[in-house]
């Protein structure tokens, strides 16, 4: 077979190996494997720590320089303070040319730093930071990352484009919005809303899979912080979308933008069969303080599941027209469910002017438990 000279001291080991039963042979092989793997692990640990150390050292040297350059060139630029639009300001890039920007890690570090700055300042200075990013051609690296076959890289590139507000062609983003990878799909949709100049909200029409709670957090941030986005009337999707998560998310946006014209659409949603969605709709109406829906809510109250009943009581408290004090009092006194009584009490207390007499009367006549609930709701130290 192989003609490798074997040192003499290994002879007894080899002969033991040849003579041993299978289990022992396996054990011998695995001992060697285990020792090798352990050594490899030690090596990897040392290597990763060394690389980490090097990275930190390089950054410790580079970051203060980048910071100073950005501060001097952008934050302290005399024309920014004077209010000259960012597009007309000439940047002096001499200082940046002295950074080791021919190295990839240095370019990445600079990009990250610019993004970090943009998370702290906006307005003209923010635009100028974006100009800096483009003039240093840092977006080219990101463009390259977009072409990587690895989804994590693409996500990172998209996030960077969103942060830097760099327009990307629809043809690049649209195919990714249907990717099989959830993270990539989500990032592409966010990028589309933020960066597409055509119809940013188009994807609300087409999305079929549910928006996760996390997607909603990201979408909400992007929609509410993008400066030149035109906010549509979200009632459109409340009426027409068959995707429940989109409807529920639009209800939150309606509240955020206080879109009173959407109220009729939301009222129509009260007929939906899905009681989670119905609860969301009631919640939305309450937060909008929609006038004249109280009667409707109160009339449907008795046929609702617990969750919707609680939302109705809360909504009546939020609207606080004072017209439903009797209803709240009835619920508070006669409901058998603790949570309903508490919600009713809270709303009574919120109906401040109109319910003052009733609350006073209840305080004097209520039984022990109801008294405790009332006091709980009246105590300003207790939030919920």
């Amino acid at each position: 077979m192989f003609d490798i000279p074997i040192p003499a001291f290994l002879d007894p080991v080899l002969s033991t190996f040849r003579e041993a039963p299978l289990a022992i042979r396996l054990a011998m092989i695995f001992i060697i494997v285990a020792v090798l793997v352990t050594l490899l692990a030690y090596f990897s640990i040392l290597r990763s720590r060394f690389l980490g150390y090097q990275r930190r050292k390089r950054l410790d040297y580079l970051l203060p320089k980048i910071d100073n350059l950005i501060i001097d060139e952008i934050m302290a630029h005399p024309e920014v303070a004077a209010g000259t639009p960012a597009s007309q300001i000439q940047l002096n890039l001499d200082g940046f040319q002295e950074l080791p920007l021919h190295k990839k890690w240095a370019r990445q570090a600079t990009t990250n730093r610019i993004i970090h700055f943009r998370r702290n300042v906006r307005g003209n200075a923010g635009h100028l930071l974006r100009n800096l990013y483009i003039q240093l051609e840092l977006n080219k690296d990101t463009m390259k990352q977009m072409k990587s076959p690895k989804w994590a890289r693409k996500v990172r590139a998209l996030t960077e484009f969103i942060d830097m507000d760099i327009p990307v062609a629809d043809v690049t983003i649209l195919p990714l919005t249907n990717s099989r990878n959830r993270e990539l799909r989500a990032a592409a949709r966010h990028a589309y809303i933020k960066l597409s100049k055509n119809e940013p909200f188009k994807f609300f029409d087409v999305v079929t899979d549910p928006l996760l709670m996390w997607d909603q957090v990201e979408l909400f941030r992007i929609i509410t912080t993008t400066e030149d986005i035109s906010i549509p009337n979200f009632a459109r999707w409340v009426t027409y979308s068959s995707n429940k998560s989109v409807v529920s998310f639009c209800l939150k946006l309606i509240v955020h933008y206080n879109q009173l014209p959407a109220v009729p659409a939301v009222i129509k949603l009260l007929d939906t069969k899905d009681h989670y969605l119905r609860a969301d709709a009631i919640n939305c109406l309450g937060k909008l303080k929609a006038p004249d829906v109280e009667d409707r809510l109160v009339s449907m109250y008795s046929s609702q599941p617990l969750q919707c009943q609680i939302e109705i009581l809360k909504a009546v408290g939020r609207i606080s027209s004072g017209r439903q004090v009797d209803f709240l009092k009835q619920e508070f006194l006669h409901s058998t469910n603790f949570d309903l009584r508490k919600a009713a009490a809270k709303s009574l207390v919120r109906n401040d002017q109109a319910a003052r007499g009733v609350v006073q009367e209840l305080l004097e006549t209520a039984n022990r438990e109801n008294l405790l609930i009332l006091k709980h709701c009246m105590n300003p130290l207790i939030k919920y």
Partner: protein
Amino acid sequence: MEGLLSWLGRAYENTLFVYGLVLLLVYALLALLSMIAIRRYTRKSTQHQLDILASSPMAPGLTILAPAFNEGLTIISNVRSLLTLNYPRYEIIIINDGSTDNTMEQLISEFRMVAVDFAHNARILTQPVRKIYKSTDPAYSSLMVIDKVNGKSKADAVNAGINIATFNYFVCTDVDCILHKDTLLELVLPVMQEEKKRVIAVGATLRIANSSDFDEGVLIRMRPPRQLLPRFQEVEYIRSFVLGKMGWSYINCVPNVSGGLGLFDKEVATRCGGYDHSSFGEDMELLTRMCRYAHDNQIDYAVRYIPRTLCWTEGPASVKIFSRQRTRWARGLAQLMHAHFSMFLNPRYGKMGLIVFPFNFFFELLAPLVEFSGIIIYIYLAVTGQVNWPYALLLLLFVYTYAVMITTISILWDQLSFGYYKKWWEVAYLCLTPFMEFLLYHPLIVFFSLRGYYYFLTGKKSTWGNMQRQGFGKKKT
């Protein structure tokens, strides 16, 4: 007779062989799965995500529950550190479980607390709540203290907190645990990012706090414990969380979310009755019951783990206290297996019944018994001169190197993804620990486990492990 004995001997030998082989394979598999799970986590999670959530009005509300029993030494600094966690919407409920020291007085005076009329609907039965306190200083408006009659268990205390919790998810911790400032953000993310399943619990890596530097409840610098016993525990925790729990998490088979830190779905936890105050391992018991409840009610659930270390806890530094802790854990495990044995290999409980439960039964519960019986037989064989020493030593060496390898791999995963500890030689120091673990630490665990089983069978009375703390509130200089 002679024939039967030798047949029995061979059967035992073969069973043991298969047993050992399966165990080794499972660990190799966990090493692989945990690697995939950790890589997925590190790719997906960025600090930016956490920042977005921290500034979002849409972050779900969370309730922190921290039971305290005679924690006067550290209570103030630890509550302060809970008050400064990064999260936009949360409340803190400290449950004073009838402390006999000045825990309650300290809380009242430091945070200007007053008793309030608080109406709540106790869905879980607990020892009576005496009073509920809120702060008059709006800066502490998220803080609430429950003063209750001692229920002789952490379970009873946490249940009282669950009854009062406002939000749909609660995070359960110990007052003596120190949390990373991003804990709440990290724990809630898996819930928000899960596609189809309902996440009923999330856990994260715990570590031993003993030699690390803390200042008023804030971690300054991580160090491997200087004393040997806590260092063994640190290595064990890394193996069990980073390699074990992460591997299980990848296939949605997490057996336990540690009592030191975990996020739970309040609805499911309440509906299945909350923590069991008669259990000695109430954390694992609750999770088992929650999973069982989910199965029984057709909830497609998931339990997730995070490889990042978010919680530091003081590990017992003396063998005496350590023995108390481990005996208790073993007893809890025996209790749990006994109470839920109907799930064993029961296909109705899916992975829980077919993977998690059998694994725990064979390789957690039975392992100490198997090892102990092995040693007895070995001694018998040695005395009667039937041992083939070279082979025996070889097999021993094999198990030894394998164990060291698995532990080293888990340290490697931890290092590759997070690079904890400041100096490389601190990691080297940690890497040397597994070499002694097999000979010094492991026998202790086997012994304490057997003692726990014995107490379980005889029903010895025990109070809740009230360990003596050194307290790490102030920076040691």
